[in-house]
């Protein structure tokens, strides 16, 4: 499973919505249930899923699925080594 797919799965789990309803542009602005608590749950779930830790400065920028995938991918080998290759 690619990093993106894994991120989508976690987002869908945390928000309680089907994966199909989520795309790169999904964000707190266009998904009503995605409030600040869900955002926190999401960040912590991603950290557990990928075994990584975001800085607070990174967290405040993770405002859409696209930006989240980028933030996960940037955090090094663990995320990358699991990607599609």
């Amino acid at each position: 499973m690619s990093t993106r797919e894994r991120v989508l799965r976690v987002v869908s789990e945390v928000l309680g919505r089907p994966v199909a309803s989520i795309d790169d542009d999904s964000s707190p602005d266009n998904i009503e249930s995605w409030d600040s608590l869900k955002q926190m749950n999401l960040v912590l779930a991603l950290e557990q899923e990928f075994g990584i830790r975001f800085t607070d400065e990174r967290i405040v920028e993770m405002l859409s699925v696209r930006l989240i995938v980028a933030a996960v991918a940037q955090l090094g080998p663990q995320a990358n080594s699991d990607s599609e290759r």
Partner: protein
Amino acid sequence: MRLTYSQIQGELNSRDLAALPPLRIAVLRNVVVEPIEPYLRYFAYRMGCNARCEFSDYDNVFQEAVGGHKGILDAQTDCVAVFLKLETLSWDLARNFAGLTVGRIEEEADRIREFVSRVLVGIRQKTNAMILWNSFELPPHPSLGIFDYQQAHGQTATIDQLNRFLGDALSDHRNAYLLNLNACLARVGARSFYDLRYWHLGKAPYSREALEEIGGEMFKYIRPLKGKNRKCLVLDCDNVLWGGIIGEEGLAGIKLGKTYPGSAYHEFQQEILNLHRRGVVLALCSKNNEADVWEVFAQHPDMLLRKEHIATARINWDDKVTNLTRIAEDLNLGLESVVFVDDSQFEADQVRQCLPQVEVVQLPSSRAVEYRDILAAGGWFDAPTLSQEDRHRGTMYKAEEARKELQAQSRDLTSFYASLEMILEIRNVDEFTVSRVAQLTQKTNQFSLTTRRYSDAEIHALSESASADVIHCRLQDRFGESGLTGVCILRYERDRALIDSFLLSCRVLGRGIEDALLVQCMKRARSRGCTVAVGEYRPTAKNEQVKDFYPNHAFRRVAGNPELHYFELDLTSFDGLEPPYFHRIDTQFQYRAKVGSQ
């Protein structure tokens, strides 16, 4: 345990939680702790309940407790959790301590005491639910550094005193406890307990690890509240009580002693012994030659456990599922009371699969040094109160074995009863017995006509009511005390006495106590002016044995439905004959006016 968010969600989503009895938890807080919810729901599911968590608005502890702002506290609430973090309550005491005068410190402490007291009273006016109040955290780095520890008015001392005040204030109320957050903090460690990013981003101070630990601590209180704490520890022997296999390595070859590597088992046995002294019933379940195992118990110089600590043992080559079932029967306990400890993956899996009610602990035999900690951390047997009955339970089971032997020798049941020389003491509940009576209503499943669960506070309230009697009985016989083991709650409505609850601990079944207790309670109802007694039977999965209790005692079946059967007894023609085989029935009821008379 360390569960990930996904594992918990997955587990919760795959179960039909709606079918489980509800558990309502109200959270009053001045910080963001919503992420504790999945953990609470998970722990609740593990004890067979469907938890619903309701949170007060942020920093609305007072508004909710005193003003009922959101209305999350009511008679249906099971547990109120209070998260009052000092940083939000008093920035000065929490973070600006170095800048405070002694006068200012006192002023702040006074304000907090006043606040806490009013919140506590506010909660109690709205609900009798269990209160779990988190203590204030001691600072890992006090504002005055190590100098703080030398100061009578230092930050650490001040917070300590506030916690002691909190503990005292809570102990003035029934069913209200100070949850030791500093113990949770110590177990997790300050570096992992806090998530500083979210403390700053969203006033959410605690990490997932911390919230899991706190949730676990809360359920050590909630399980006994619902009668779900465990009572019996069943132990494998080889590579559990000692290192190695007795049948192969022999008495001198097994690892057990005060020095490494036997020290891990020595410490583990000490912890087991501590549980025994708290009233946990111990049993052995081992694939072994029985004589080999008892030789270790009798001969090994470093055995802490002795044969007299073991209530029953199944040491043979049968499978453990069969043996565990037999052990539960021997002890007259349900499998949901059992924690089973084994080092074998195979045995653990088999028991998990066939007996899901049993809590299975698989010890890592390559890391015996962790055994003690694993057992101590489980909290399966914890209860916020420890009654006399609890403390002596282990020895009571021994006496029970002696009774069984006597029964085997007796000609018939009546002569067996008579030979026990039973003395039954029947009383109204008082301040010393409220907790035990509440505990019995919470824990008793088999001999229980209605299985209504009551908290300490509810039993206390009933005992003060002019239109109810809470009656208990205590049994003693030639083999010892069985303690407080029977309860009957009568509610009076004009000339009718409703038997709201009637139950006996499984420890004293089969001795005719129910006959004596019922007769005395019916006489009590009659002396309070009642002409009719109404008995109820509420069928559950476990109380089939009492379905004909009332018809067998001259009650007449009246209306009812499949969930609730009603029976009536005409007290005016009731003979009031006591069973003949008691050595003495000693009944003393409180003086109370006749019901209905002014």
